[in-house]
């Protein structure tokens, strides 16, 4: 498998990252090295091994349906770069 600069551009687009053409080349090379390294796992024989969704081996961790106190509105908004009244404010979203 080989990643092209186009693939990097696509991935960057999904992540909303702006990168230069030069960076695309650099990242494509670096990501290919990563994939090559990870790709060595493909040499393992995984016949008969059940796919794992989680490495811990734990299952069924639940909480009961009991209300706990929430943050107050001021606390909730503290870290926001822009607010208005009790709301977070963001640039207008156009569908």
């Amino acid at each position, binding site marked *: 498998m080989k990643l092209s600069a186009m693939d990097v551009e696509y991935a960057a*687009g*999904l992540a*909303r990252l702006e990168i230069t053409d030069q960076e695309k080349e650099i990242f494509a090379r670096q990501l290919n090295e990563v994939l090559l390294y990870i790709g060595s796992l493909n040499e393992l024989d995984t016949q008969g091994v059940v796919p794992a*969704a*989680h490495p*811990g081996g*734990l*299952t*069924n*961790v*639940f*909480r*009961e*349906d*009991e*209300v*706990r106190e*929430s*943050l*107050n*509105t001021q606390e*909730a*908004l503290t*870290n926001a770069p822009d607010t*208005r*009244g*009790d*709301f*977070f*404010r*963001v*640039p*207008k*979203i*156009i*569908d």
Partner: protein
Amino acid sequence: MDFETVIGLEVHAQLLTCTKIFCGCSTAFGRPPNSLTCPVCLALPGALPVLNRKAVEFAMKMALATGCRINEQNVFARKNYFYPDLPKGYQISQDTLPLAEGGHILIEVQDGNTKIGIERIHMEEDAGKLIHDEANRASYVDLNRAGVPLIEIVSKPDLRSPAAAVHYLKSLHEILVYLEICDGNMEEGSFRCDANVSLRPRGQSTLGRRTELKNLNSFRHVQRALEYEVTRQRRLLEKGLEVEQETRLWDEAQGMTMSMRSKGEARDYRYFPEPDLVPVVIDEAWVAKVRADLPELPQARRERFVSAYGIPAYDAGVLTSDRRLADYYEDVVRLCDRPKIAANWVMGDVMRLLNEDRRGAHDCPVMPESLAEMILLIEEGVVSGKMAKEIIEQMYRTGRPPAQIIAEKGMVQITDEGELDATIAAVLEANPRQLAEYRGGRDKLFGYFVGQVMKLTGGKANPKLVNDLLKKALHHD
């Protein structure tokens, strides 16, 4: 060319848990903006989700009620996309191992029942709410709803008309409300629907190019939007044009669907297993426990009402439309064993009084015991049907049993023959002209005499007895 309509629906139902799916924040609706949040549903760094057990059990109920196979292995997955109502930048949902798959429900259409397949039911979290400010080119975000538990119910493309789609939707809605796992409030967004629509030449087995419709906030919107879209697509195809695969928004005011401008970018959610949550294993014992807890479902109950109580299908439909109302009706029947009469009272006066106050049957002030007692009092001739109308009104206002109201108001029906004979004699004496005319052949005047007797007794005379005694009196001398 003759086209066949193919519709599939995706329904999102908010679960009636007290808390969100992955944190202890309340799910209450209508609270001040951003007052029900915490580090988990705000996506603050380091906060970890923990699954609400009740949300899983509620979802299992719907899966069992629709005949789905519950997967033993359940895995949550991240669905990645950016939108300001989604603070984490991904929605925790389910992908390859959803809660349940392969069910169906039956819907009633003109020519009997049709099976509508259910592809899958999965659990996920709701997003926050956005309010758009046209004037200021800004949007405001309220995250109270972020993390409210949802189930998504995906139908197979088995629906063949807008009417069938609405039927299916109403059935799902009814089941969810019956199970008491969703309040079904479409205005508040507790029950939402997206529709996939396509047309194909009749007889063709492959599906045509489809559009996805959004913003369907009521059953009426669903019907109108689908009808509009079917017509729009047919006109395109008849002209030899292609239907573009896209998402369209229903605009109720203009009565049309409109393309949502996409930025020409295909959706790529890059699902992967959610590393912050461990798998859920649902064994047979757990399934059996939830199954044992299921109430009788509306369709089964309707059929039983018809067969066990001998009431018309229409009555059974009305009475089972609300689980608490059906419970109420059954309590009354159990106590008086007069199913048809009980159905008439419940569907008539009881429902009218409840509707006037927008009250549910579970807090009806007329206790089932009281209604049953009144029905028996009518049958015994103690009160007339007309008096009963007044009594039930009083029972509703005061919550008191009928005997007490009858005693207080002196409403007991007059069944004393001597007393009625005397009243009849007085009426005949006071109306010599009418009496002569009646005896001269004007039979219609019989009703006039009955009316006079009722008037004199303040409506308390037993009508059947009045009839008998009056006949005797008129033909006697």
